[in-house]
């Protein structure tokens, strides 16, 4: 790093020495768009200088360039910027390609079929590499946030290895998968592969939002498709690129804490809280600045004394500054007959949770070779991800630290201290002396409970393509995608001194004989996916009519196994091997396999270059269903009409492009796991006992004749460009109805089962998506691109099974409720009178909790806004990406945690005094004929621990808050070192870019969200909208980047 900055310094110093002789270069610039011909007004610039000229009306230019100039840059609004190497020539022609949606952009569709944008009858958004890597995000998923209308990415937490949930156009299935399908280099793979990719390897991502795409990808594509195309080598140049990025993570949001009360959990005869030196809860007396003891006397009677004053920053300072080091090296080359791309990436992450680490290494090889009409290509990727993280609930433990505790002083829990005379001194942080009688020192816990994982992902795709005639092509593709996952949970042994043992025994802390023994769990999951495709493509023009027809078949075989071995106690401390166990070996193993095949046909008819009709059909067979239900068919049709071509005179200075489109499609999908058709018997609790085994009837009522779910999608849209394509808009309206859902419905326990699988119910989704791409400023030196997108989601559960009113999505307070949005949070509330006032007891002043829970609101946003701005001046560019989500709510379980521990701000808002419950009433009538009289003077019985930790904590109403959030996701400032500066390297260094990047720098939340980033979720399942203290606080990231190309 140091050497590199020295190099940059030297380069800058040598600028003045580089002015020399000039020569003249001429050429013609034309458009790649059919019928556009020569392009006037294109800026031709010598790279790295301000030497530039526009082309004339015939697209011609002539430019004096310095002798040492290497590259010309051609730029024009609506066209992709093109760099061309001069390579000693005096005539340099250029062909510019369109970059606007709605123009003749080529879109990679299913099976790598390149389709002209004119013929696409549904909404497709394309994201190029630049937009994905601008802020050097470590994984491609999070880099997409806010950049595509109708796409929602949720990160499960801020850990070193976060999972993401990716949703297009909302949720369609109550309980089934709602996440988009990932298609990587033509093959469908698990969405988890998205975060295994090196973002730099991605050439482009095409997002197919509607169901229309599914005909070719099959039922897995019912929720939209993200097609990732990785880079292939360039046919006309060889380049090597090296990039290094270092970023820092800091906790950016922390729950608001109270600063009035210290530790304690009990009160005296008069209800006054008592100070407790060893308590984890914070329900003690008010701070007074006096000196108090924390913890107990040590063996010699010494005490640890601290001021009785709040230390609100300690819990924030507990978190480390995370560091991410990302190094990339890639090689790209090729010629007329073949290409090659090789890349390697190493990402090393240190998390904000002290001691958490992760590493990702990615190796990629993409290559192709053509021989006459035959083309063979291969794409191979290998990713290794390792993590070493704490398994402790450390956030919960940190929150369980009273406000006067100098938490960060206890970080050295294993240290040994001596006084000046060499006599041992008490380390107040060690396990024997830590002040807290109920929770261990969080620093010690972090090191004692560890989880180490390693995941290996491999993808290999081989494609063989033979041109049979000019208009007929046959293609076969085979792919394998194995992945292997190994995890180890390690509990390190903990040994107490006799003093510590006594102390812990007395306070109920768990002790095992004389210590906590070590424990070990090791598990492995293996997954394998094998797909084959055979496709025949017909492509021919009959005068004005073009026909492209595709017929094909595909098979998929997925299988996997998982197994776990548990040694609940180890004999030799910290020797982590299952042979070293005490007692019986625990564990489990399972195998799963499913297969599917499909036959499909797809035809596109075009008239001239403005009217297109596209139809598709597919039949699937899936092993997941009963043989009588194996086969199911679904069709789709869409059309597009380019009015700007059809209606003469429409295309002009104002409107440069206008297309209308619409389509209807149906997709079947199977949302059940393997082996879900038959009822099962589980091994009865903890059996076998010796030779005695026992089984118990399972709790799920399965259904042999489950059918696929079907989604009917309709969409219509308009793409318009104005002012010579400086303003491009795209508007899409859609509706989907998903019927015949596989519902794993919670049933009354009295049926003898807890859930039942049936086909029932319907979900409706409607929405509008707007995309705007503009270039307000474009001069030779200045360019400003501004893109905005907006999506409105409307969602209703139309019906559930029979007269069922709601489905519990797994004991999370989150439901599918008939007539409401999906999913909806339900809460408990205080009993209220008909006017909505809380009814309290006339004597105790206490409210009661109503037996009926009430729906409180939806947990997916109604509105999503994304904004991206990219401003460049000469070689300096500034890119900003922001997004908003709103109209939804979430439940934060930190509400409960903070009320339990008493450190949260809410628990001190009334100074813990008794108070009259606001806007409450007392029933002064009878139970049968109530009379509700406003309560003006009966206070609740206790404003302290009992009220907050019991009454309020039993109520979920207040744990739910608005989930609206504005985020400044990405900011990057980059500077391309001018070619003139790099000239002294004799063209060895062809480009050098330095940049400053930031991600998630700012988050704007509503005032009543005291808790966390509402984007977090408990997992990637459908029951979104609930966060817990297992999600560590949100972080912001900032850092520097340097990219060199050779």
């Amino acid at each position, binding site marked *: 790093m140091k050497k590199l900055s020295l190099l940059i310094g030297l380069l800058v110093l040598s600028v003045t020495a580089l002015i020399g002789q000039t020569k003249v270069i001429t050429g013609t610039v034309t458009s790649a768009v059919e019928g556009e011909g020569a392009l006037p007004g294109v800026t031709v610039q010598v790279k790295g200088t301000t030497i530039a000229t526009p082309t004339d009306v015939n697209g011609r230019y002539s430019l004096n360039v310095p002798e040492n100039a290497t590259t010309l840059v051609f730029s024009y609004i609506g066209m992709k910027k093109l760099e061309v190497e001069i390579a000693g020539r005096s005539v340099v022609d250029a062909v510019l390609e369109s970059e606007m949606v709605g123009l003749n952009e080529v879109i990679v569709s299913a099976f790598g079929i390149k389709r002209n944008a004119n013929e696409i009858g549904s909404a497709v958004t394309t994201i190029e590499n630049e937009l994905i890597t601008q802020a050097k995000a470590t994984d491609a998923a999070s880099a997409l946030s806010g950049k595509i209308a109708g796409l929602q990415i949720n990160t499960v937490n801020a850990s070193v290895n976060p999972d993401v949930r990716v949703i297009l156009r909302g949720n369609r299935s109550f309980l089934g998968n709602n996440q988009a399908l990932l298609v990587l280099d033509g093959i469908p793979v698990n969405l988890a592969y998205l975060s295994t990719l090196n973002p730099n390897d991605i050439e482009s991502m095409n997002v197919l939002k509607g169901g229309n795409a599914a005909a070719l990808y099959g039922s897995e594509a019912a929720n939209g498709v993200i097609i990732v195309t990785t880079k292939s080598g360039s046919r006309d140049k060889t380049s090597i690129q090296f990039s290094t990025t270092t970023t820092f993570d800091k906790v950016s949001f922390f729950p608001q804490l109270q600063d009035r009360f210290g530790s304690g959990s009990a009160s005296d005869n008069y209800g006054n809280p008592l100070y407790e030196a060893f308590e984890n809860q914070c329900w003690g007396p008010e701070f007074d600045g006096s000196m108090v003891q924390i913890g107990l006397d040590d063996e010699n009677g010494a005490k640890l004394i601290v001021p009785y004053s709040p230390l609100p920053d300690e819990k924030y300072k507990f978190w480390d500054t995370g560091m991410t080091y990302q190094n990339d090296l890639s090689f790209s080359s090729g010629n007329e007959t073949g290409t090659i791309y090789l890349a390697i990436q190493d990402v090393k992450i240190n998390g904000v949770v002290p001691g958490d680490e992760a590493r990702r290494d990615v190796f990629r090889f993409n290559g192709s070779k053509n021989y006459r009409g035959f083309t063979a290509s291969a794409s191979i990727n290998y990713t290794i991800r390792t993590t070493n993280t704490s398994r402790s609930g450390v956030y919960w433990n940190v929150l369980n630290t009273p406000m006067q505790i100098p938490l960060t002083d206890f970080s050295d829990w294993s240290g040994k201290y001596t006084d000046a005379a060499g006599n041992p001194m008490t380390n107040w942080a060690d396990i024997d002396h830590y002040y807290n009688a109920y929770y261990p020192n969080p620093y010690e816990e972090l090191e004692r409970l560890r989880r180490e994982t390693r995941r290996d992902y491999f993808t290999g795709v081989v494609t063989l393509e033979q041109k049979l005639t000019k208009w007929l092509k046959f293609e076969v593709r085979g792919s394998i995608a194995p992945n292997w996952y190994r995890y180890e949970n390690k509990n390190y042994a903990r040994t107490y001194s006799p003093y510590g043992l006594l102390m812990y025994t007395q306070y109920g802390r768990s002790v095992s004989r004389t210590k906590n023994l070590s424990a070990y769990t090791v598990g492995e999951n293996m997954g394998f996916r094998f797909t084959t495709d055979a496709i025949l493509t017909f492509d021919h023009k009959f005068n004005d009519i073009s026909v492209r027809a595709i017929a094909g078949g595909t098979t998929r075989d997925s299988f996997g196994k998982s197994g776990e071995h548990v040694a609940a106690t180890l004999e030799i401390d910290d020797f982590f091997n299952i042979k070293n166990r005490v007692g019986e070996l625990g564990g489990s193993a399972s195998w799963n396999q499913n297969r599917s095949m499909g036959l499909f046909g797809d035809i596109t008819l075009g008239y001239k270059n403005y009217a297109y009709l596209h139809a598709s059909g597919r039949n699937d067979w899936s092993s997941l269903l009963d043989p009588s239900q194996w086969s199911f068919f679904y069709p789709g049709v869409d059309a597009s009409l380019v009015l700007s071509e059809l209606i003469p005179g429409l295309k002009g200075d104002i409107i440069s492009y206008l297309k209308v489109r619409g389509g209807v499609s149906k997709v079947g999908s199977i949302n059940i796991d393997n082996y879900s058709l038959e009822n099962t*018997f589980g091994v009865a609790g903890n059996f076998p006992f010796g030779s005695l085994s026992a089984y118990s009837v399972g709790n799920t009522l399965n259904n042999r004749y489950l059918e696929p779910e079907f989604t009917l999608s309709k969409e219509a849209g308009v793409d318009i460009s104005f002012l010579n394509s400086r303003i491009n808009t795209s508007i899409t309206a859609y509706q989907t109805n998903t019927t015949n859902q596989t519902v794993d419905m919670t*049933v009354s*326990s009295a049926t003898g089962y807890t859930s039942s699988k049936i086909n029932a119910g319907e979900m409706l989704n409607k929405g509008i998506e707007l995309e705007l791409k503009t270039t307000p400023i474009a001069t030779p030196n200045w360019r400003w691109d501004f893109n905005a997108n907006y999506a409105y989601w409307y969602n209703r559960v139309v019906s559930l099974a029979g007269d069922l009113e709601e489905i519990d999505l797994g004991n999370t307070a989150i439901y599918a409720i008939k007539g409401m949005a999906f999913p909806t949070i339900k809460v408990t509330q205080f009993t209220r009178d008909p006017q909505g006032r809380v009814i309290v007891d006339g004597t105790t002043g206490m409210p009661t909790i109503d037996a009926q829970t009430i729906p409180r609101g939806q947990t997916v946003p109604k509105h999503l806004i994304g904004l991206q701005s990219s401003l460049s001046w000469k070689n300096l560019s500034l890119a900003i990406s922001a997004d908003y989500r709103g109209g939804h709510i979430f439940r934060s379980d930190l509400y409960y945690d903070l009320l339990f521990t008493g450190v949260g701000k809410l628990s001190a808002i009334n100074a813990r005094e008794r108070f009259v419950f606001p806007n409450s009433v007392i029933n002064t009538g009878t139970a049968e004929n109530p009379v509700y009289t406003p309560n003006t003077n009966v206070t609740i019985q206790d404003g302290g621990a009992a009220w907050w*930790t019991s009454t309020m904590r039993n109520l979920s109403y207040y744990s739910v808050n608005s989930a609206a959030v504005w985020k400044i996701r990405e900011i990057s400032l980059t500077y391309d070192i001018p070619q003139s500066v790099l000239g002294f390297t004799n063209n060895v260094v062809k480009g050098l870019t330095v940049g400053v990047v930031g991600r998630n720098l700012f988050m704007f939340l509503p005032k009543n969200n005291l808790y966390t980033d509402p984007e977090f979720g408990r997992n990637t399942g459908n029951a979104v909208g609930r966060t817990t203290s297992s999600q560590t606080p949100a972080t912001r990231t900032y850092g520097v980047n340097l990219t060199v190309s050779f």
Partner: protein
Amino acid sequence: MKKLIIILIAVATIGLSGCEKWLDINKNPNDATRANPDLILPGVLKTWGADVQNLTQLYGAWMGYWYHAGGWSGWYSEKKYEITASYLNRFDYYPGQLTDTRFIRLNSGDNVMYPAITDVVDAWYYSRLIDLYGDVPYSEACQPELTLTPKYDDAETIWLDLIDRLDNAITVFNNAVNAADHATNPIYSFKPASDIVFSGDFTKWKQFANTLKLRLVMRLTNVRTAAELKGMMDNTVAHGFITANVSVNPGYSSSDGKTNPWWNTFGKSFSGTVQTSNTQYVLNRYFHEKMAALADPRLEKYFFAPASASPAGTLISRVLGVDGDLVTQPNSTTAANYSWLFIAANATVTSGRVNSGDGALDRAVIMIGPEAYFLQAEAASRGIITTGMTAQAAYEAGITASMTASKVASADIDPYLTSVNVAWNTAWSATEQIKRIIDQKYIANYFLNHFESFCDYRRTGYPNPMHPTFTNDAALDPLREMLSYYPGGLIRRQIPRLFPYPQAEININNDATMAAINAQISKNGVTFNTTSYPFDARTFWDTAPKTIGYDY
């Protein structure tokens, strides 16, 4: 082109015909899809032991045996009697045990032994559900093919049907015992290894079924005349009753999840870690004083004296809902000053103490032997059973059995039986006899059977929740009663009598559950909330006057 299409179709057709085999791979390799009654029964019986243990825990505090140690937060709901619909969900008995017993009944073919055992199991589970909730689903329960929203049935109707089913079971067991061919006749054939309660001893099953029937019959003393109850018992009384604990042992061992459930909860984990429940519960002042007034030698077998006690050996107890909140918190020297459950002496789980030795491997108790004697004593006293033991004989046998199980030295038993506050007095009135019997049953029920004490308390009013010297003025003498008067939110000076229906049932089976709630509300004039429902709603047999306990 045409040729190609023909070839493609041909290939597809050939391919498809081979597909059937290729696709037919959905056979579950992970979970069994077949089972038989032999394989289901051991799980049912083992879980039974754990469920008995689970119910006893809560009532340890509410019935005045235990209280929560200081230095722990929580238990506000218990201390405040703030019982919401989310507090407890024992409807898990349905998917847990009652589907298993149904499977056994439906798959036993001609065999009559397995169904008879499930009648006994069902009688226990449904009677507990009615004790806890009142009306519950029964006639439509566990029949998902019939309905996913089972209706609730009248508790009394269910109860009488349970007694009928026990009668049937007793008949079947009796026939088996008497049948000369019971070893070979397929209708009696039975795999003894799967009976981890009695190892296939049908005489014991018969006595157990009969004792359980007596428990159910005696529950009806407030709603049926003694003559009616006698009529119910007459047909089976001659079959006799259990004389020792009914217990289960699948083969407990010192491995994870394989230890005795009582030991695992109140003692130590399989690896020797002291469980928190052990140190969370300490001797309750009410039980302490009650036992002390009788100079009962079982007290020191139930609890240990703290090392710091002065004079040595003195037990130190805590007061329900008071200590730990009003009394100065314990510190390193006072924390050990209460009498905990744990004792490192040579005692066992079944004695009401847990120890470090064989507790992990002990049998788990389903019904205690002394209960059978006290049931007979009360039945004799009320004239429900007129043959066999007299009330006095059964009373003394019950005390003796309890003392023996608690490892009281046999030399100490007789003096206790003849001591002034215990010795049977023929001059006792009928009411006094019941009070004495129930008081002794209460002491015998300690640890293993708290829930039964709670049922006796609701039915008879005994044990009286107030100390004999109670002045009816809490300020003067707050420390000697069974009732909590936790200051933060005391609602009633009364133990909750009935649980609200589980929140999950209100949510999922709303119509049926609300109908049951409304029936309770109209029967008892209560509202369904934490303030009145748990106190004023009652199960059908709980009709004792409300003067037991008293309103706030």
